[in-house]
């Protein structure tokens, strides 16, 4: 039964929530709106909120001037690539830890978690020097490796908490019926594991897409993803607000949509299953 709530209380709560929600969302909305202005209107005082000549010219200019698509493809390759490599390592590990736990499985999980606590600055200097000596600076391969290692603990953990929820009896039943390990994997485990794997993939693509410590420090141009592209707008002569907004809108829109779908996974993934 739904709780009975007075109309007055409901109205006040709704108004307050919408107001606060709007204020929190406003910087994003403002960026999107500004991306459709001319540079002159973007700077105008008092600011123009809705009544101006809407134009899409900035989007064209951003692409023309900077080969925007290269940054997008780098972002896609880095985030999806690093996540897929991590899944390749993590799926077997999480599977084993969930279904054939050994004495040390728990310690192992905790240890993996602890590697995630290492601040990246503790590794920045040696990684930078190793990359320099191996010619990996500003290469996609090198960055994929770093992002993969950075997110591997979260991926193992998330998969582990999902796999843990698959009832072990089903596997036992399959085994009793004479299913081989391979069949057990493909016909029983895989279909039940796919949703968890998909959620893990989603969250980690988001994390890798927005990663801005390694991507800023280890790239200059060839492998630079959108984080670095946007950072290039920080130079004083590059301060064109409408173009900055257009570039920003394109950089955040896809991940914002994915993120909205991934809310629940976000909670589980980033709290390592401590809050569900």
């Amino acid at each position, binding site marked *: 039964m739904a709780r009975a709530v007075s109309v007055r209380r409901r109205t006040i*709560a709704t108004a307050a929530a919408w107001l606060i929600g709007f204020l929190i969302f406003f910087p994003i909305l403002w960026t999107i709106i500004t991306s459709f202005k001319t540079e002159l209107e973007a700077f105008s005082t008092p600011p123009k909120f809705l009544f101006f000549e809407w134009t899409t010219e900035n989007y064209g200019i951003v692409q023309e001037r900077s080969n925007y698509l290269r940054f997008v493809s780098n972002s896609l390759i880095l985030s999806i690539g690093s996540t897929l490599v991590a899944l390749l390592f993590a799926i*077997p590990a999480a599977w084993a830890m969930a279904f*054939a736990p050994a004495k040390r499985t728990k310690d192992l999980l905790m240890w993996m978690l602890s590697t995630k606590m290492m601040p990246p600055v503790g*590794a920045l200097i040696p990684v930078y020097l190793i990359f320099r000596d191996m010619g990996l600076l500003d290469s996609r391969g090198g960055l994929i490796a770093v992002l993969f290692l950075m997110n591997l603990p979260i991926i193992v953990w998330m998969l582990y908490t999902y796999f843990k929820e698959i009832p072990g009896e089903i596997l036992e039943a399959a085994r009793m019926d004479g299913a081989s390990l391979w069949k057990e994997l493909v016909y029983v485990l895989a279909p039940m594991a796919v949703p968890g794997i998909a959620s893990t993939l989603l969250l980690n693509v988001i994390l890798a897409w927005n990663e*801005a410590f390694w991507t800023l420090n280890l790239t200059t141009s060839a492998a630079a993803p959108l984080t670095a592209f946007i*950072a290039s707008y920080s130079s004083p002569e590059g301060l064109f607000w409408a173009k900055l907004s257009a570039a920003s809108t394109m950089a955040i829109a896809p991940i914002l949509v994915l*993120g909205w779908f991934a809310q629940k996974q976000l*909670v589980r993934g980033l709290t390592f299953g401590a809050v569900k």
Partner: protein
Amino acid sequence: MATQQTRLLGKLAVAPSVIVLFLWMIVPLALTIYFSLLRYNLLDPGNESFVGFFNYEYFLSDPAFFAAIGNSLKLVFAVLAISIVGGTLLALLLDQAIVGRNIVRLMVIAPFFIMPTVSALVWKNMFMHPVSGLFAWLMKSVGLEPIDWFAQYPLTAVIIMVAWQWLPFATLILLTAIQSLDEEQKEAAEMDGTPPISYFYYIVLPHLARPITVVILIETIFLLNVFAEIYVTGSGGPAGNLPYLVYFQGLLNFDVGGASAGGIVAVVLANIVAFFLIRMIGRNLEG
């Protein structure tokens, strides 16, 4: 039950992840410790020499180091305070019977998905610009002198941007926790006419104690590592934190030894937090 065969398979399945993570953790850390004991400048290659704890002494006598530690801690505490208090209140509000709650929730959570470099530049320019920013316009229209955020209050400006990204995270976690509160318990409290304040203190807060601790610990880990917001806004001089200082010392001043010493300090700092976090999550594994 696990047979001999599956046990072996299990080990084989876990091994690759363990090996790469072990290498990823131990190799850079060992090298950083090693470098931190050397006089090692990239502009003067081939002349590395062992100097013991000189780099640490140098760091500990450098005012910039204490400023960076201070900025790191201020940033962490301020953002934590804003996101925990704000997040709790917001989560309570969003738990009410609200028309269009899902849409409000989407709006509130959105900043968390914004790329840090985007949020840094949008805030710095379109909101905090001393002449054309929205804040300047708002202050002028109520007759106040506009603030030049990054000149006058650089650290506060960084705190606002970072808090804008982490308040949604805290809200989402705490809302998820509140919604897992027993519906019958809520109803019973309402039927008994429990005043909102006692409802909060005796029912909600005890239930939120754990998730709040989790949020504090996780945010601390991430907030100690804030880098892009400071780097992109060019506020590293006055508002630089420990990660920025290490970047500055190592990749701009080419002082590998000094930067490594700073990196080790950051590792120690993070480990203190990690110690508590890991214990907490470990306890959860058993439960």
